């Protein structure tokens, strides 16, 4: 609400803290749990995004292993048809919406302000809200496991099978409302992060000096900003159909089920690119660092990212080649899809060119990055083979597609995220991850990954359709399914090595008396390495002034008189000491979490009884006003109903 107490007019020196609506005042000096629940610090929020994503990753991973167990042998009955359908739907949904997207958000949150030299994001409270509302939606979606079983419509949930007549159980309602709520978080996050990038860059940080990661995240957030509302619209229609008897997908009334497909994929295709672009951004930071060369062709990297973002809007119907959209549409979308290979190829080749002539340090982060380059290419190439519509009529809805998207999603997005974790771990937590376990982690995953998903190419071409609870012996799928299942367990175990590594590295670090890892353990390039590790709460003691791409590297290295590059200072010498005295940070707040968790109450109300909606809605309204009326002991200024926070105040 655009409702402001007059904090700004408070006379100097008054410490009167208002208790609006008799509820909370802003928490201060919060510690422990309360600190985490009320924090508005982008770094803590980033970490929470990461942890939540990891939590959901385990759930989605266990679901995946159940799928693989069921498919290990023909005619197996470990999962009933109904359970199987729920498990694969939830697996896909969780992995896409609650794992890959939030990991992207985690990196974006943690790194964007640091990489552009800002104190925080533009609207810190909204940032906290984005996270909590994502978590609320994710938990609501997962609560369906215990409330009648998960959704059973497949992750793209085609109409009319998602209607009440064909899916009467509540799973799909949870899918619909849970993602609806999580979507609010993505949307507010996108507004927030775009504003941050466009508006809060340090002096001298022009657009073309921003790290590639910042660029890719910016594109990602634009994709979110415009794609989520389309999904929201589709979900609104579905909600009205299921809960209020509307007819949008009611075929007997003449509705056209393809409407859902169009809406879903208009969202869905940009969605797949917004899952991969953050990972592209990450490896674009890692590869130059460990090749000890600048990224090859920075402008091309940036513009190809933007091009992918744009082209991503013109190809959605490649998911509908056999839906009967007519040969004209098929032709147009088929050709458009193929050309997406061009900007993506530019990226791949530029990474290789960065490695060309470099001096590569093959630590785990770098290995995962090279892993992305190779594994993603496999997925990208299979993508091109089904961009060719006639061949897609044979491939679509077979395991060949399953292979494609796991190669791009796991081999692309997740490998990139793992690279990022190994790379930025010291900045986030103050210690490095163990390299030895890291190498096991990497090679184990490469092995497990290819064993799991490589055979799926073969299975798909042999005609194994996806979403099949079981298959017959006579179909000849036995061998490769077994291989795939074995691979998936190797993959699962080796993935867990990450957690083992974190735990082990931490205890060793603790045992060693928590030695300082230094501001710049990798001899890295961008300005987040110019502050202490772990990053201090206020980020920069002094807002940096940027004069170059890879500014920090240019501070460390300069040409001597003979024109030879020399190290003029080490990162640790240049690093800010981390004592930001007098820095004023936004105060924590209860309202983001309260507002976020008021929404699922409305959601449950819509599913079970509209009466529940009343307290839910009341709580929502109270939280909005509470938020807006919250005493601003920082510069909180709110606006129209979304109550964005003020930016971090300038000079303090």
């Amino acid at each position, binding site marked *: 609400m655009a409702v402001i107490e007059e904090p700004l007019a408070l006379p100097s020196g008054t410490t009167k803290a208002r208790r609006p609506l008799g509820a909370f005042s802003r928490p201060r000096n919060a510690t422990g749990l309360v600190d985490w629940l009320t924090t508005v610090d982008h770094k803590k929020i980033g970490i929470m995004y990461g942890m939540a994503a990891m939590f959901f990753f385990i759930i989605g991973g266990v679901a995946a292993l159940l799928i693989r167990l069921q498919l290990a042998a023909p005619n197996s009955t470990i999962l009933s048809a109904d359970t199987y359908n729920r498990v694969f739907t939830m697996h896909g949904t969780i992995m896409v919406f609650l794992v890959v997207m939030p990991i992207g958000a985690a990196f974006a949150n943690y790194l964007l302000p640091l990489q552009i030299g800002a104190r925080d994001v533009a609207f810190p409270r909204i940032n906290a809200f984005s996270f909590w509302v994502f978590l609320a939606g994710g938990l609501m979606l997962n609560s369906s496991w215990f409330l009648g079983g998960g959704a059973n419509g497949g992750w793209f949930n085609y109409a009319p099978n998602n209607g009440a007549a064909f899916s009467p159980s509540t799973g799909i309602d949870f899918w619909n409302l849970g993602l609806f709520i999580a979507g609010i978080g993505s949307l507010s996050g996108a507004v927030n992060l*775009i504003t941050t990038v466009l508006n809060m860059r340090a002096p001298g940080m022009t657009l073309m000096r921003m790290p590639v990661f910042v660029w890719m995240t910016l594109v990602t957030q634009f994709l979110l900003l415009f794609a989520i509302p389309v999904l929201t619209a589709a979900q609104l229609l579905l909600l009205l159909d299921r809960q209020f008897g509307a007819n949008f997908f009611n075929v007997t009334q003449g509705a056209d089920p393809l409407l859902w497909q*169009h809406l879903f994929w208009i969202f869905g295709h940009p969605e797949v690119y917004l899952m991969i672009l953050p990972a592209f951004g990450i490896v674009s930071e890692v590869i130059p660092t460990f090749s000890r060369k600048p990224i090859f062709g920075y402008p091309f990297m940036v513009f190809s990212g933007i091009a992918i973002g744009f082209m991503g809007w013109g190809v959605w119907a490649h998911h509908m080649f056999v839906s009967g959209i*007519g*040969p004209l549409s098929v032709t147009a979308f088929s050709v458009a899809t193929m050309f997406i290979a061009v900007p993506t190829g530019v990226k791949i080749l530029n990474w290789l060119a960065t490695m060309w002539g470099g001096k590569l340090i093959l630590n785990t982060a770098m290995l995962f990055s090279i892993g992305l380059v190779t594994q993603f290419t496999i997925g990208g190439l299979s993508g091109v083979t089904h961009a060719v519509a006639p061949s897609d009529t044979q491939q679509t809805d077979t395991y060949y597609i399953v292979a494609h998207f796991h190669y791009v999603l796991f081999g692309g997005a997740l490998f990139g995220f793992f690279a990022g974790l190994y790379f930025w771990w010291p900045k986030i937590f103050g210690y490095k991850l163990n390299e030895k376990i890291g190498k096991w982690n990497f090679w184990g995953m490469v092995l497990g990954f290819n064993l799991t998903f490589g055979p799926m190419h073969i299975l798909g071409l042999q005609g194994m359709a996806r979403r099949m609870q079981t298959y017959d012996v006579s179909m000849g799928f036995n061998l490769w399914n077994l291989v795939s299942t074995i691979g998936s367990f190797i993959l699962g175990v080796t993935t867990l090595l990450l957690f083992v590594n974190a735990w082990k590295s931490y205890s060793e670090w603790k045992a060693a008396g928590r030695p300082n890892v230094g501001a710049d353990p990798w001899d890295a390039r961008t300005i987040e390495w110019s502050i202490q590790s772990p990053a201090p709460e206020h980020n920069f003691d002094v807002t940096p002034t940027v004069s170059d791409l890879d500014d920090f590297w240019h501070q460390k290295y300069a040409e001597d008189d003979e024109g030879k590059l020399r190290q003029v200072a080490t990162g640790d010498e240049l690093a800010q000491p981390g004592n930001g005295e007098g820095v004023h940070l936004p105060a924590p707040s209860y309202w983001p979490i309260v507002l976020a968790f008021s929404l699922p109450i409305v959601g449950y109300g819509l599913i079970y009884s509209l009466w529940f909606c009343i307290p839910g809605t009341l709580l929502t309204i109270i939280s909005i006003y509470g938020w807006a009326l919250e005493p601003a002991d920082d510069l909180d200024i709110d606006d129209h109903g979304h109550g964005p926070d003020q930016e971090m105040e*300038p000079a303090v």
Partner: protein
Amino acid sequence: MTDSITLDSTDTHGHSDHDDHAHPTEKQYWIVFVILAVITAVEIAWSYMGLEGPALVVPLIIMMVVKFLMIAGVFMHLSFDSKMPNGRTFYLCFGAAMVLAILVFLVVLAAFEFQI
């Protein structure tokens, strides 16, 4: 309060002092309003002319777009704000979305038209 830390701008140092003089006057607003009202009247009249097909639709769409642009440009200050340094960001955010929405959904509707 130290003055050493600023989150100051990069591309444009300091903030341009665009002021109300850049915005239209009350009178101009009224004029715009009258124009909008007239267009609306014409639209309604047009819809009563008993025309069909493109003869009905095309002028209506044109008038709709004109109205749209006038409200966005004048009332929402788009045409004024966009003159400020970097004001084109407005176009980026809103215009891109507008164009995108129109194109994407036109294609959807077309796809339903041309099924063969």
